[in-house]
């Protein structure tokens, strides 16, 4: 006879927990579950050294490069020629990304990167990757930044700049 009472109590507790969680997520979006960067297939990752070398090469066609992290980070330093299209952890940021690529052919080569924090904690990259694939883009690569953009890109001497607002050519 006790069993239904316990079940009812458990249900109430569970419902209350769910309600609290929904409320917290609504009030503070960063608590929302973000897909880990590790969910990006290894075949679609590109290493910093390889990407830096390809940027130097005049024979390799340049992809569209998009920084899908945070504006404060982009304003301090980014890969020359890259556009800001983020942040990937926010619906508004994903909309910026969608708008940026909306006029492009689906076979456009795109490289996205973030580097805001250690790879395992990056809240942006997997969401941006999923978004581009969801939009039908088939040649999306992700720059693998293990620790952060400073350590794994700038400190290695790979090309970086503070200039922005120069890349308004949306045909690519």
């Amino acid at each position, binding site marked *: 006879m006790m069993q239904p009472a316990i079940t009812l109590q458990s249900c109430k507790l569970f419902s209350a927990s769910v309600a609290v969680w929904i409320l*917290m997520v609504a*009030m*503070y*979006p*960063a608590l929302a579950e973000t897909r880990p960067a590790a969910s990006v297939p290894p075949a679609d990752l590109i290493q910093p050294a390889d990407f830096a070398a390809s940027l130097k090469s005049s024979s390799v066609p340049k992809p569209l490069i998009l920084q899908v992290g*945070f*504006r*404060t*980070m982009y*304003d*301090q*330093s980014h890969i020359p020629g890259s556009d800001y299209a983020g*942040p990937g*952890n926010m619906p508004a940021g994903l909309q910026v990304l969608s708008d940026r690529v909306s006029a492009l052919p689906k076979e456009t080569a795109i490289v996205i990167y973030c*580097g*805001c*924090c*250690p790879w395992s*904690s990056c*809240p*942006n990259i997997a969401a941006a990757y999923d978004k581009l694939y969801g939009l039908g883009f088939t040649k999306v690569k992700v720059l693998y930044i293990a*620790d*952060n*953009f*400073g*350590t794994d890109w*700038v400190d290695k001497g790979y090309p970086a700049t*503070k200039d922005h607002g120069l890349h308004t050519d949306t045909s690519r």
Partner: protein
Amino acid sequence: MSKSLCWIAAAALLVLLCGATTATKVGDVAPDFARADLAGRPVHLADYRGKLVLLNFWATWCAPCRKEMPLFSMWQRDYGAQGLQIVGVSMDDDVTSVKQLLAQRPVQYPIVMGDAKLGAQFGGVLGLPLSFLIDAQGRIVARYQGESDLARMEAKLKELLPRQRQ
């Protein structure tokens, strides 16, 4: 006259460029800054001379940063009387999410909003978390980038406290 003006302009530009590109490393005097905290109170780094300062760059979207903050808050409570002052600099693009987080998880130290300019002063904040330990003379004595060993950070901090526990 116009030649002198050109020289002055060139010198000013050089000073600006040098200031913008100065890398901040251990042993350097920490760059000074003054900002208002989230409650509007002034926070001036130079005013903390004589204290040991832990300057923590963080953001709401940075999971390792959120993990550190409750501990930093405890350190402020436990070591504040011995001369520790923690200052948080949020690198969020928007203050709203910062206020929301702090309303839920308050900390016992001031938080100011950072930006690209402040980041550049500290050699570029190009990844979080990033913390600097600044001694009583205003000199950077340690730099912690990424997920740090917080037990080691606390040990270093205790060693450098201006007033040791009797």
